[in-house]
């Protein structure tokens, strides 16, 4: 194993673990539910997931028409599948399958 890969993994992995663990030790869960920090944190989850979704989609939006088209099909499939079954896994797999099917059929 190359040393630079191990070094990179240890730096990124070690710091990521600290980001995830240290805040648990700071008793931030004791805050009042209607407090500023509580409202800030309540909005963080949806904001983080929305951010990651948009960040994942942006390269596809700037890609070829074919990629844009199948990404659109995938998004539509996720929304429809979730509306139907209210299942994260079903919606995820439906989106990926729809995107793959659109590519296979050469719809764009």
């Amino acid at each position: 194993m190359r040393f630079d890969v191990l070094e990179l993994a240890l730096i990124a992995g070690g710091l990521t673990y600290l980001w995830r663990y240290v805040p648990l030790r700071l008793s931030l869960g004791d805050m009042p539910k209607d407090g500023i920090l509580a409202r800030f944190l309540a909005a963080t989850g949806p904001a983080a997931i929305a951010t990651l979704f948009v960040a994942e989609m942006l390269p596809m939006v700037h890609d070829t028409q074919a990629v844009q088209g199948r990404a659109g099909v995938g998004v539509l499939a996720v929304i429809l599948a979730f509306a139907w079954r209210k299942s994260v896994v079903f919606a995820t797999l439906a989106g990926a399958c729809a995107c793959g099917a659109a590519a296979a059929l050469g719809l764009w």
Partner: protein
Amino acid sequence: MAQERSSGLAGVQAVIPLVLGYFPIAFSFGVAATRSGLSPFEAFSLSLIVFAGAAQFLAIALLASGAPVLVAGLTLAAMNLRHVLYGPTLLQRAGDHRATRWGWLWAFALTDEVFGAALGAMAKGQRFSETFMVILGFGAYAAWLAGTVAGAWAGGGALDAWPAVGAGLDFMLPALFLALLLSILTARQVPAIVMAAAATVLGTWYGSATLGLFAGMIAGALVGLFGRKAGGTDAV
């Protein structure tokens, strides 16, 4: 005891979507890693030590570009800085059931998807427990490692003959994020979501992808400061 068994069962039920979603994404990571010149063991080591999907894909690009290791490592760590807010958010939602005795363990596996799944389960009435978090986190971790091994073993050219499968796998991560977002969507969160999306686009366009991630998360969370007081669910 019965409560722990119930939490364990709930954890198993909640982790199944993550396992099914993580395996193919990790498979495509293994393929991409070996395609870029990493050995299967190196790809596996990244998954074993880092366990952060988007950061691992970025790690491949940074290694391939020859970026200095310290700079690359700190870039990846900065990208994951958003995870600072996940534990406290879950504990705040946990209310009287919050516990951190085993936090050193389940915090390791507190990825975006695990956080989203835990939040979604709690929004549907699941009581917070450390057993639930350990099963959820390490079930996802096992799937991530297994998928990486399978992808690395298949090799860099595994999907060349199957472009449609590759296209589907490429869409797996955004599909998972969108599904997670839909699962926790409430009317109260819409302003934060819209602000996060807008800030991500602007940050990415006028800065970089990493700046876009930070801008989106911080802007969206800041909207929470000016929103209505917590209390209801206002489901969409």
